[in-house]
């Protein structure tokens, strides 16, 4: 993985920086250069995604791509954040059997890919169960 590609996504992967259309209220993650249905970005304003939500759907990956070989089985889910935005990420610190659609989660900063012995480490977000006092207040 050449370093420029993940580097460019830092604001999104590290800080969940998105956009909100001030006309429709729709949220775009990642940010876009043109608001759908229009030909410019004038209505798109900076907006940070919330860091809590619930599981919308998920799957347990048993046959992984090579960069995740050592981590399988792992869970990938689509999380519906508290503002309605949906994002894809892994669900960590949780047995697959304990995950249900609707389970409350918190977004945490995690290492997503290691790229072997030599590569630049890719950090980003994962969802963890929202446990009062432990991962959330």
């Amino acid at each position, binding site marked *: 993985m050449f370093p420029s590609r993940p580097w460019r*996504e830092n604001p999104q992967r590290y800080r969940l920086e998105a956009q909100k259309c001030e006309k429709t209220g729709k949220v775009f993650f990642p940010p876009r250069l043109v608001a759908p249905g229009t030909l410019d970005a004038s209505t798109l304003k900076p907006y940070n995604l919330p860091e809590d939500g619930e599981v919308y759907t*998920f*799957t*347990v*990956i*048993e046959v992984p791509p090579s960069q995740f070989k050592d981590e399988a089985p792992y869970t990938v889910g*689509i999380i519906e954040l508290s503002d309605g935005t949906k*994002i894809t990420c892994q669900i960590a610190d949780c047995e697959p059997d304990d995950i249900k*659609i609707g389970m409350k989660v918190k977004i945490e900063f995690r290492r*997503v890919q290691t790229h072997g012995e030599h590569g630049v480490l890719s950090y980003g977000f994962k969802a963890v169960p929202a446990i009062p006092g432990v991962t959330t207040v």
Partner: protein
Amino acid sequence: MRDVAIIGVGMNKWGEVWESTLRDMFVEAALESIKDAGVDHLDGMYVGSMTPGLFVGQEHIGSMLADYLGMKGLPGTRVESACASGGLALKSAVLEIASGHSDIILAGGVEKMTDCSGDDATYALATAADQEYEVFHGATFPGLYAMMARRHMHEFGTTREQLAHVAVKNHKNGAKNPKAQYPFEVTLEGVMTSVMVADPMRILDCSPITDGAACVIVADLETAKKYTNNPAVKITGFGHATDNIALHSRDSLTCLEATKLAGERAYKMAGRKPEDIDVCEVHDCFTIAEIMVIEDLGFFEKGKGGTGAESGETHIGGRIPVNTSGGLKSKGHPVGATGIAQAYEITTQLRGEAGDRQVEGAKVGLCQNMGGSGGSTVVHIMEVV
């Protein structure tokens, strides 16, 4: 715009074709289709292939395949829309003929997927998803469809067994297809206990890795009459649509909007409704895909695709036979070729030449070819002239 018809079809036997290269398979299928049509020249060629570059390091195949077909000088175009590349090649050929620019075009598709490791093939296929926001997090194609399946089960009560019915039916049909990769039947039990790939998608819910090529010859109706003894199969409508590439961007995970939109566009152009369709080939890359597609094409109410799969209505002899060829599941899925092979099957059905896969009295057929997790779809409607 002129009327356009398919006048010839060809494909090699699909599978792990160790002895053939990408160009070998394409030429084999192309020659079969040219012979079937009885034409002696082409005005142009469209080839659908998802990623010959990643699979075998070869791009520029529009040129290469014209060369290897012995037709250097021919305008050759490679088109790509992930797994809908074949459908896109056909649509492109149809438009060039309909416009009056050309009279005889070959629309083909090819993918050579076994000259690399399984991991490399998986990586290549994953390029059809959102690299930075889906694949980066470890989502795989079976994983994306598994997430759709889980949502479909949650919203509509679709069951694990209903998913298996799709695989069983398609293998039953594929067992009768001499070109299929896996021409044998499977059982419900066998599907539901096969190795888990991405919960709930098991290995027998997933279409395989396949080498294969398929070609059809498309001509305007006047030219068709000059060349062919076979009944011409007219393409009366087509529809092409895209959707958000990432699942999480879509309003619903249980509705394939690109399929719905492409279907509506095709029905409108053909002046047809879902109930007019006698036989169809749909994109069963995963069992759940067939269930959602038959809803989104209007054959079943939204949410009823599962019970539909279980009911026998989609079997040969049922209300709306789906995937008489064996579908992607049993026939195989050499990515760029699939859309063309669907046209091969529907043409064969409408000509009455499908043997023990024949749908009695089939007059109107439909092909639905989908890319990635539904980010693009091309639908064609065909009728006997």
